[in-house]
């Protein structure tokens, strides 16, 4: 099989190995000049602010039951309406942000830590270690993501913490693959070979030289994985295996809203929109980061956009 078919194969990249700090500052500037990325950044910042100050922002607490006020449509008192127990949907959406972000961050943090370590070791040392580790990752990769998470939760029991672990395990192989591919590219660079020949220790080499240069695809993958993790948490909570009631989780709210679809569409619509918005932001941010940090990896889509439109009409004359 040719390398071109491996979805995460990375061409030998970046011989200029040192990650100048300036590169990241320029990257940041570039990032904020693209409207979708700017939008994504603002949304992510917004959601983080919501999550940090949720109790100040939310009009009510997450579980203030008031049966008198149940199933009220969106209006002046309750912008997003109320649910079957008379709780303010807006407040629960705001308070749910923290849950989503927390699960996303912890789960991706887990995948990142384990996956990058595995990828570094496998890519740098190669040989049997590579074979064993990557086949192990293949095994994890062969499970449909949600199903693996469900299986893990079946063992650990439902709950927010276990959802984090389950999602973390599920996305570990992706990080391992991305990191390994990047390491393979960097490993053969003149700079790394030269450093090795003058006896720089393996640990130092990995942390100081290989890792920083493998960073761009990993950063991109982090953003994209955050999107997946938020989706996965919502899905697990939706089927009742994630965050447990009465805690406000967007996925959970959706599944509760499902029972009242005909009477109270707002119960399902608003938490859903919240999920879409946050996931969209992480995805767009990932695309933006890819364009700036990792131009070789960007899709032909963006590449074509950046280049003059030379290929425009080729092939289909009027």
């Amino acid at each position: 099989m040719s390398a071109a078919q491996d979805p995460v194969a990375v061409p030998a990249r970046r011989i200029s190995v040192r990650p100048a700090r300036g590169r990241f500052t320029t990257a940041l500037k570039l990032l904020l000049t693209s409207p979708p990325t700017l939008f994504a950044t603002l949304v992510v910042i917004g959601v983080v602010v919501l999550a940090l100050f949720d109790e100040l922002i939310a009009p009510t607490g997450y579980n203030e039951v008031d049966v008198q006020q149940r199933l009220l449509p969106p209006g002046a008192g309750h912008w997003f309406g109320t649910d079957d127990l008379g709780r303010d949907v807006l407040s629960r959406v705001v308070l749910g942000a923290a849950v989503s972000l927390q699960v996303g961050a912890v789960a991706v943090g887990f995948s990142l830590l384990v996956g990058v370590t595995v990828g570094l070791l496998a890519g740098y040392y190669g040989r049997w270690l590579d074979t064993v580790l990557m086949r192990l990752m293949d095994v994890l990769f062969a499970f449909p993501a949600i199903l693996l998470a469900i299986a893990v939760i079946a063992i650990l029991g439902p709950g927010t913490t276990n959802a984090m672990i389950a999602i973390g395990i599920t996305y570990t192989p992706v990080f391992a693959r991305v990191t390994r591919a990047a390491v393979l590219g960097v490993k053969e660079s003149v700079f790394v070979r030269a450093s090795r020949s003058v006896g720089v220790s393996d640990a130092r080499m990995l942390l100081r030289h290989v890792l920083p240069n493998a960073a761009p695809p990993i950063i991109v993958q982090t953003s994209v994985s955050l999107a997946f993790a938020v989706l996965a948490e919502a899905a697990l909570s939706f089927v009742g295996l994630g965050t447990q009631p009465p805690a406000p989780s967007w996925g959970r709210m959706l599944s509760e809203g499902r029972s009242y679809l005909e009477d109270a569409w707002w119960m399902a619509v608003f938490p859903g929109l919240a999920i879409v918005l946050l996931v969209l932001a992480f995805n767009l941010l990932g695309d933006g980061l890819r364009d700036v940090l990792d131009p070789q990896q960007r899709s032909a889509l963006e590449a074509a956009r950046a280049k003059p439109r030379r290929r425009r009409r080729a092939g289909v004359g009027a």
Partner: protein
Amino acid sequence: MSEPVLAVEDLRVRMDTPRGTAHIVNGLSYSVAPGETVAVVGESGSGKSVSVMALLGLLPKRAEVTGSARFRGRDLLAMRERELRAVRGDGVGMVFQDPMTSLNPVLSIGRQLTEGLLAHRRVSGKKEARERAAQLLADVGLPDPRAALDRFPHELSGGMRQRVVIAIALAGDPALLIADEATTALDVTVQAQILDLVERLQAEHATAVVWITHDLGVVAGIADRVLVMYGGRCVEDGTVDDVFERPAHPYTQGLLGSLPQLHDGDGGGPRELVAIGGTPPPPTDLPPGCVFWPRCPVRGDERCAGEQPPLTAVGGGGGGPVPHRAATFYDAARDAGEVGS
């Protein structure tokens, strides 16, 4: 001289780019007679490839092409896409630079040869198309042509692939063959073989050839006449002998100055143009006067800075049927000669 196959008159190509309007070809005129080979020489970015792509409407739509290009009396530039399609691959064949990429990797050689034949209704059906395709492959010297029909490009060597590309270009028995850097990507020995092949085929079919190259060795080997392009303009043209023996434009001299062996007649391997100081001007920002002025080592006339020197006959050149012309205000050949002696 007989009626030319192709007569290009004041060809201009402009294109809007984010950095402003690019003037890629700026008033190019030349003609090619049956059986004649005209070489268009220039550095990359001189507009030579664009000038031939424009003839067949192969440029992106937003490229603005003006002037005229009469092919067998009909103006290609005024044709609709439909009429052009009838000319492409039939009256005019084209060979591109890189045989690795100019063939479709996932279609068989036979398919790529026959589709043109079928499109132009040169054959009655698939069976005849295959016969003809095998014949074409034999013509270009591919061993075991019948078996080659079922092979894929990656199974052939670079030279063999370029032979296939030439076979495709010749499929319509064209009156004009345009070769865009057709030997640049090949090994030296393979280059020589391909040049021989084209010369032989040209002699057999009296095909007119426009050969785009930046390789003066190729020009010397194949061309009757040569046209030197710089900044989208023709800066000098004439017979190969005139231009190579008595270059009149400082740019041509610069090109040839890096090739002393040429005059020694050793005919050694092809040589790249060795850089003259500086780089060609970007097509978005051409100088007002002579396009070569910013890099010109001679600067023999003050008018060059602000005024475009027209193509004028070079004094002292051969008085043959083909004029030797250069776009300078002064006779650089004579001046250079004086400096030299």
